């Protein structure tokens, strides 16, 4: 047998190209994709907030009844939470090497899901509720 370490890899592993992480460039690519969508969505949301600031409750409530506003505001936490979960994962992996690493990664995912779910619940209630 050859001493070449690359011979240890099966052709299937090489073709899949997923490397040691098992997920290849997925983390990098999803971070970039959500960065792109974040730019458009956050700019929309900032404009929306500027328009809504100091407006009475009824006006804000009425704005969410507009399906385009409801849909765009709903996309904000979806894109945001995926992006921030990936970012925090990198931060945890860089600085936490103790037994806390796994619990923190789990908490990170739960937090991102909670933020997204709570936002979507509120937006759905605002858009469809009486």
């Amino acid at each position, binding site marked *: 047998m050859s001493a070449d370490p690359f011979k240890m890899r099966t052709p299937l592993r090489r073709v899949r190209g997923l490397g040691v992480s098992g997920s290849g460039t997925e983390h990098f690519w999803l971070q970039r994709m959500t960065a792109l969508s*974040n730019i458009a969505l956050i700019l929309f949301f900032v404009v929306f907030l500027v328009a809504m*600031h100091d407006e009475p409750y009824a006006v804000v409530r009425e704005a969410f009844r507009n399906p385009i506003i409801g849909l765009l505001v709903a996309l904000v936490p979806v894109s945001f939470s995926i992006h921030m979960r990936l970012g925090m994962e990198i931060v945890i992996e860089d600085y936490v090497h103790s037994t806390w690493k796994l619990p923190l990664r789990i908490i990170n995912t739960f937090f991102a899901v909670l933020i997204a779910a*709570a936002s979507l619940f509120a937006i759905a209630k605002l858009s469809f509720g009486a």
Partner: protein
Amino acid sequence: MSDTKSARPLSPHLSIYRFKPTMAMSIVHRVTGVGLYLGTVFFVWWLLAAASGPEAFSYASAFFGSIIGRLFLFVYSWVLLHHMFGGLRHFVWDMGHAITREQSTLAAQATLVASLASTLLLWLIVWIV
């Protein structure tokens, strides 16, 4: 990750490097990212307050309309815009541009200028509207 300590030499850490704009913007990009992460709690609070009814919404409005609330929103908007411009800088790098020392330093400085200028412009608009 193993906790075993070895006598192997460590790579130089932060304290060994001279302060550079690119380094500062790299750190700020990460810090602003963490800040935005934690700040989403306020985003959810505002939405849930609006969904809960006029009374809950009035509490949230009172906070965001107060001096502390406005200061928070001002800082948060800069953090948001700075992270966005930092991200745009990363996109430029991903495309293989502005990698030289001079260009990357210029891009780092431009990121800070753009974020500060756009934040002031945003709040000028808020103040006028």
